[in-house]
């Protein structure tokens, strides 16, 4: 029982990341009708927002303290981050919480990147075949990756979680089991709650605001909404920005779990596409459900008990599920007829 609970928990954070990326992909499919292979790169860019903020916050002021000497007899260099010398304790807290703090930076940055991408490139591809859309965004993904590689190097850059969330949490106690059975890293739980919050936010935005209503109407029938005198293109641009932001935040919050490097986006992108296909192209609830489902299944497949029966299953479980789903339910779990069929 506790083993099962632990695997479900283990799958939740990864599932959350899949769900967030797949959500953005689905929104882009549904509104703009564009297959965005650069979506994984947006995830990666979000992660590097956290890296940049951390790097900026930890810029250090170096002073030489002549009263103290090092072992070599030179004056001791005292390194104090500027934020600490300016803001004191608040600066220390700021540095400690660099990952959550960088959300504030990432939201405008990712929105801007999304809008620029849509206006500057994607909009010229609405009328082009899907193959062209795939190819041009694939090229863009490579370019973005290589730029990040040039700027930050090829090695993963670890990002610490805030001290509060660094430890483990004994989840078993909370649900009335013996202590020590279900121990779970705190930050993963934070990530899961964060992803649920973002997903809820996106759904609420689409469901309960006038803007969201127009967007949903535009997804169903773009032409009619346009004929009603509503500037659909403008709204869809903003929607693309939001999708970019969601992917960016997903990557940003994931940095304490997986140290970001330049190709992290590609690995997630392929899996997220599979998630979208399993969930049903064009279905938002499908994308979210399939994201969590596949995340949890993947964590079950990496249990040693399972691996000893079926070696290597953890590597391929997601693809295998996708194949089975497509053979049994060709439109995915919640796909509708006529959506992105061609």
């Amino acid at each position, binding site marked *: 029982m506790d083993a099962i609970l632990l695997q479900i928990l283990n799958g939740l954070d990864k599932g959350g990341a899949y769900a967030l990326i797949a959500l953005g992909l689905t929104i882009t499919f549904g509104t703009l009708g564009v297959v965005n292979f650069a979506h994984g790169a947006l995830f990666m860019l979000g992660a590097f927002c956290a890296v940049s903020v951390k790097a900026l916050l930890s810029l250090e002021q170096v002073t030489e303290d002549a009263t103290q000497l090092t072992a070599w007899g030179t004056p001791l260099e005292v390194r104090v981050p500027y934020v600490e010398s300016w803001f004191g304790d608040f600066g220390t807290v700021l540095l400690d919480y660099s990952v959550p703090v960088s959300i504030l930076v990432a939201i405008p940055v990712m929105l801007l990147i999304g809008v620029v991408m849509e206006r500057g490139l994607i909009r010229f591809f609405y009328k082009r075949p899907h193959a062209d859309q795939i190819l041009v965004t694939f090229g863009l993904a490579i370019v973005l990756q290589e730029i990040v590689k040039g700027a930050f190097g090829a090695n993963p850059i670890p990002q610490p979680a805030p001290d509060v969330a660094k430890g483990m949490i004994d989840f078993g106690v909370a649900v009335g089991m013996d202590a020590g059975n279900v121990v779970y890293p705190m930050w993963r739980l934070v990530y899961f709650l964060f992803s649920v919050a973002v997903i809820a936010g996106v759904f609420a935005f689409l469901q309960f605001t006038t803007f969201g209503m127009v967007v949903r109407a535009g997804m169903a029938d773009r032409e009619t909404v346009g004929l009603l005198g509503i500037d659909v293109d403008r709204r869809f641009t903003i929607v693309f920005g939001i999708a970019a932001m969601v992917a960016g935040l997903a990557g940003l919050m994931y940095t304490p779990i997986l140290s970001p490097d330049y190709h992290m986006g590609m690995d997630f992108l392929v899996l997220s596409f599979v998630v979208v296909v399993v969930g049903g192209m064009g279905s938002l609830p499908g994308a979210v459900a399939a994201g969590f489902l596949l995340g949890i299944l993947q964590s079950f497949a990496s249990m040693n008990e399972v691996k000893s029966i079926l070696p*290597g299953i953890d590597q*391929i479980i997601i693809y295998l599920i996708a194949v089975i789903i497509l053979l049994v339910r060709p439109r995915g779990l919640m796909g509708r007829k006529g959506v992105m069929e061609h």
Partner: protein
Amino acid sequence: MRTLTLSRNDLILLAGYTLVVLGGPIIMAPLGAGYPDLLQKFVIFGIFAVGFNILFGLTGYLSFGHAAFLGIGSYTAVWSFKLLTMNPLPAIVLATLLGGLFAAVIGYICLRRTGIYFSILTLAFAQMSYNLAYSVLTPITNGETGLQLVQSDPRILDAAAGRDYGAVLPSSDLFGIPMNGYPGFYFCGVVSIVCFYLAIRIFRSPFGLMLRAIKSNQNRLNYTGLNTQPYALAAFVVSGMYAGLAGGLLAVVDPLAGAERMQWTASGEVVLMTILGGAGTLLGPVIGAGVIKYFENIFSAFNEGILMAAFDFLPEPIQHLMVNVTSLFVGEGWHLTLGALFMVIVIFLPGGLMEGFNRLSALVAGIVRGRRDGASARGA
């Protein structure tokens, strides 16, 4: 019965191709590409791209997983060297067959969907093969190290023929001719000429027409009561066989096989070769493969020293600036150039270089005609 002859234009095309391949060392020498390693790459990736084009160019199905078949071909060929003989013929035959077999299985599943679904499914399969080759299949693929020949390999057929390689690590040879350097290139070149001939045949056959029909309007074909699935599958298998053969040849000229050959960026590269040259044209993919491999070779060789020398004529601060900017695009940064090239081609020249040539020649013809018309108008 249709004969095996080609129309006059196709004969000229084939003859031209043969001439360029066989005269490759001389023709490419002025470009600095007249050495066997690079020429081998030209023809091998030419085969890969020609095969990919039979699927993508004719039927319009965009596969993002063809590198998997390339990798399978390489592994098969190396195993054939290890177990059977160092002769490349069984190696490439087996590589082709196995490539085709895997393509049949994967294609059968992926072709149940069209459009983006198809692309994503092939991508998923390629990624799955890559993951497997790195992890569980290590006994077959030798994981990260890559599959290599060792001295103690059984080589049953060689042993039966009483051939002993002694204490050196054997390299592949065709009845005594070693398959590296120019002989290796000519072996690959002859294979590629055969492949090119077959591609012409496929393009001109009723089967090829059917594939084009799938691209232009699959619905209409379905309405006329035709099941397009077998045709698309056949195209998928043929292109998988081409990919397997190309992978096998890669192993023939350099008996090594690694999983990175199957990565999806490698699949992206063959897509780029095909569209850069011109999808759906006979010659386009070959040209695309040549151009990409040529520039990859040139660009990756650049380093800071060469760049400094190249911008030597500029004042020093500007020189440093130029070197810093360009070094992003060359050497290690070759992929950036590749990605940018990808975007530029798709945005501005979706028909590829072939379309560019056609536009250019139409332009020239237009100017010539305009002059003549102008002259005659003046004369009248």
